[in-house]
């Protein structure tokens, strides 16, 4: 198909529709209102259903019901709304339901503001809710990638029977860029019929019960082991990242994700023009995190710079990857303020001439 100039939010919606998403349940929240708005217009055109839920709590539980019926379903929200989905997301993971959840992050905590942020990294990758579970987390850096990852997300969700979170920020949601949807796209994973779905039972197969309750602790432990094995498979098979400028020698390695990585790419280009070579590893999956890629790329650098729109969350994963093997520096903005290419350039210069000090952990 030809390229279309689309808002990130709309591209996400269209990508879902083209991936066969038939139901969307959502509740408005800036900066992603265009996703439900797009779906309310688009889904009826393809025989699908859009329901404006009464809240994010309800939306996420509608998702649970619809996913348990075997349909491809999605919801989207922004930070505070995602927090309200926490309990249901734990249920979705516990009941192993394939759903796609989009979080277009805004700044917090609390009501915070509506401008871009990456303050939900920990929530997305580690402590989203009670209980031991993981989401597969995909972080696009452009509108095109957002569309691509949303489509992949549906396949991954179905394959692993696990919720997949697409983690963008206000920039991804709001900006327009050219997008192309591949025609005749095939699933990226071999997918089986959803025989586990609860769609009525005529006795030809065992009853389907969509459930996360295991009153017997031994059974629940087995379930936990089963889930852990699944997460381990994701760690083994689903790590995605992008290297930038690793084809040359570099002194500093940047680790950044999402639109921040784009800003860094501009800075890297500018520095290259002035003869300073910097490399970058951009995690595309935040869980599973590309520990090995970061470790290997860092091995060639003398120091590492982590850039985030938060007080420092992904930096913990970078520290886990590096285990003190390289000094780590940190550049961040918060509250909706953005990191500019200039700030990255300055920071790299400061690292070079000793004005920047390494982050040391307590």
């Amino acid at each position: 198909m030809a390229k279309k100039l689309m808002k990130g939010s709309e591209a996400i919606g269209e990508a879902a529709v083209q991936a066969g998403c038939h139901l969307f349940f959502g509740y408005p929240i800036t900066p992603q209102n265009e996703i439900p708005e797009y779906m309310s217009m688009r889904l009826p055109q393809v025989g699908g259903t859009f329901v404006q839920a009464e809240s994010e709590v309800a939306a996420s539980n509608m998702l649970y019901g619809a996913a348990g019926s075997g349909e491809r379903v999605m919801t989207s929200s922004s930070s505070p709304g995602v927090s309200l989905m926490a309990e249901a997301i734990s249920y979705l993971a516990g009941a192993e339901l394939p759903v796609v959840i989009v979080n277009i992050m805004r700044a917090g905590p609390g009501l915070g503001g509506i401008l871009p942020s990456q303050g939900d990294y920990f929530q997305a990758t580690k402590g989203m809710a009670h209980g031991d579970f993981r989401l597969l987390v995909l972080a696009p850096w452009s509108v095109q990638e957002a569309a691509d990852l949303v489509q992949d997300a549906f396949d991954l969700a179905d394959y692993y029977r696990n919720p997949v979170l697409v983690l963008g920020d206000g920039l991804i949601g709001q900006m327009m860029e050219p997008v192309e949807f591949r025609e005749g796209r095939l699933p990226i994973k071999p997918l089986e019929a959803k025989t586990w779905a609860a769609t009525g039972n005529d006795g030809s197969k065992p009853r389907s019960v969509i459930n996360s309750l295991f009153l017997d602790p031994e059974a629940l432990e087995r379930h936990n082991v089963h889930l852990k094995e699944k997460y381990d498979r994701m760690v083994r098979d689903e790590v995605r990242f992008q290297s930038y400028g690793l084809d040359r020698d570099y002194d500093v390695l940047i680790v950044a994700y999402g639109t921040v990585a784009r800003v860094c790419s501009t800075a890297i280009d500018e520095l290259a023009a002035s003869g300073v070579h910097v490399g970058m590893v951009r995690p595309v999956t935040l869980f599973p995190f590309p520990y090995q890629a970061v470790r290997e790329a860092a091995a060639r650098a003398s120091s590492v710079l982590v850039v985030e729109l938060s007080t420092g969350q992904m930096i913990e994963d970078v520290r886990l990857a590096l285990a003190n093997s390289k000094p780590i520096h940190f550049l961040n903005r918060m509250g909706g303020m953005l990191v500019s290419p200039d700030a990255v350039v300055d920071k790299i210069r400061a690292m070079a001439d000793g004005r920047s000090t390494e982050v040391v952990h307590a």
Partner: protein
Amino acid sequence: MPETVFSRPEALRDVTTHYCPGCTHGTIHRLIAEVIDELGVRERTVGVAPVGCSVLAYNYFETDFHEASHGRAPAVATGIKRARPDLVVFSYQGDGDLASIGMAEIIHCANRGEKVTVVFVNNAIYGMTGGQMAPTTMPGQVATTCPLGRDVDHAGHPIRIAELLSTLRTPAFVARASVHTPLLAVNAKEMLRRAFSLQIEGRCFSLVEVLSTCPTNWGIPPAEATRWLEKTMLPYYPLGVFKTPESGSREPRPLDRGVR
């Protein structure tokens, strides 16, 4: 050859429930199962279990099931029905589940007119967690979180779900029944049959509130519990049909009109 004129319905699995002796959750289960059998929809019925004593309902019905999070069964049912309008979807919820934490979900599900059936089991207490006050607990009734009895000045009056929902403008079937005597149980089954039938016909949302006993947490034996229900609950929770898809809007009018 003797003919069996009363036995376990097909839609009710042949297992012993975990319910306490005399708990009418069991009776309500059976009535639902009988209705499902009689309407011939067992193979396309999907139930939604709540969090409450009936959390294991999925073990008792011979149909597919979803276990919902506490209070959100109406949202889960919405998701199922919107995904698969051909299915017959019912949720089974307690009074803590539906009338406390799940208040927003039941009102909006009813108001959207989702074509699902809700069986609302009102036993005036939180059974599963050990007898805490529910929104439906009677004034003066002792519960573990109102050890001196429900004080209406502090906790308000019991909520009447059938009445509340019947005021919504969207067409619906809303009724209240009880199973504490066999004859009332027969009537309850009739209400359930109407509720399921209206769903199957694609007509409207339907909810049947069923008064139920909790001998364990009321702290009285089953037979006495039925009498307590009769004496204490029945006057406050009148039985009958509150709304039919034909009966239209029943909301109160203003006591005095505003200036125009």
